């Protein structure tokens, strides 16, 4: 029989997404073999993320202080707000390096069939930010799904009374591909979202 502590760590690892029983065992035996200091660093990192990380009071990005690193950065353009569903979407957009405005993380999407309504998201705070003034453009970057589009539609209705531009991410043909092999839906998107030269 394996010891209680070992089987407990295997059990904890196997709860992680994408980790099966065998991988959980490998990870556990790895932790057993490494030096105590190294293993405790992992424990400490897990502890810190739970104790220190919270949501930014401004945009609901992940933060370790009241405001996230992006909201604290004075070089970011506050007249533009890019609205995303989750912090991981924000990270993807940040990784492109081609956006210098601010963000707003909804922490979900409106999904009536799952019982998730607009009041469960951070939409009220977004409206507050717009009411404070200075916002010229809100970019809808929710996922291109029915629920993501529906959420963007709901928010754009709420923002219609404000003097600002509402835009959404383009979708359609991938650069470097050929039209011949694009499916009907992709081509429809590309035609609907066509832009001026």
């Amino acid at each position: 029989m394996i010891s209680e502590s070992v089987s407990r760590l295997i059990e904890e690892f196997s709860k992680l997404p994408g980790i099966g029983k065998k991988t959980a065992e490998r990870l556990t035996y790895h932790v057993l073999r490494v030096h105590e200091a190294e293993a405790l660093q992992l424990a400490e990192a897990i502890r810190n993320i739970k104790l220190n990380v919270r949501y930014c009071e401004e945009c609901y990005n992940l933060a370790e202080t009241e405001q996230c690193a992006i909201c604290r950065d004075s070089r970011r353009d506050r007249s533009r707000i890019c609205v995303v569903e989750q912090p991981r979407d924000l990270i993807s957009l940040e990784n492109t390096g081609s956006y210098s405005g601010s963000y707003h993380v909804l922490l979900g999407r409106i999904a009536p069939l799952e019982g998730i309504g607009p009041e469960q998201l951070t939409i009220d705070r977004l409206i507050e930010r717009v009411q404070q003034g200075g916002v010229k453009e809100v970019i809808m970057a929710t996922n291109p799904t029915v629920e993501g589009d529906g959420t963007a539609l709901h928010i754009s209705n709420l923002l219609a009374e404000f003097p600002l531009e509402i835009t959404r991410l383009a979708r359609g043909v991938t650069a470097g591909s050929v039209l011949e092999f694009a499916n009907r839906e992709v081509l429809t998107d590309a035609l609907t979202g066509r832009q001026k030269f």
Partner: protein
Amino acid sequence: MPLEPATALVLRTVDWSESSLVVTLFSREFGKIRGVARGGRRPKGPFESSLDVLSRCRIIFLRKSSDALDVLSEAKLIERFRPFERGLPALQAGYHIAELLDAWTDCYDPHPQLYDLTIATLAELRPQTPLGALLLQFELAALRLLGYFPALKECVHCGAVVQPQSRVSFSCLEGGVLCVSCRPGKRNVISLSNAAWQIMSQLPLLWDDDQTTTEKEASDARQRKLDVDGLRRLPTDGLGELRPVVSQYVNHLLGFMPRTQASLGK
């Protein structure tokens, strides 16, 4: 177990893991199907992000015995529901239709006519359509196809023909109208205007439910079978009166209030 092909509408998707989905579909051939789509959340691969709510697709799936989930092996998109083109009220109506179908149908209990009615109705969910009337039409025609349509001509209690008067008594509990002599002493009876009563009888007839056999034949005939101009001719005050009555009747049949009901007509 053989692989089965089907045409189906996606009613719900729930994230199952990083890359997989559990999908509830309403198929023309098999009725409701609930299955796992491994890799269904990835944009590439056998599903090509076609498994989105209200999308219509051709699927191939492996039917599992007993109560295990089926396994979807492939999905090809026929048509996606596009909220930006349809508008918010149409999207809310679409969600409501999906929720009702999920609640009303069972796995492997096919209703090809209900499927055709659904696809024809979804196609008309657009800003120009009288959405309130269309949704009532869908609900009443669906109740008729499912065998739950309320008795409107004869008293549900004694069978006597109900005479057209200024108002008619409707009972959700009994499932239809009550004549003057049966009305006393009944609980939860709604008083309907003659106009609303007439519309309730006419609405399901705007869907011509003659038999069609194959999906190919059906897809050619579907849109012709739904009389959208007929919806435009209905008096609006009678429709407004009917909305809460039909909701109450639907809730009574289901035994609960659908989540998407509150947002209707807002």
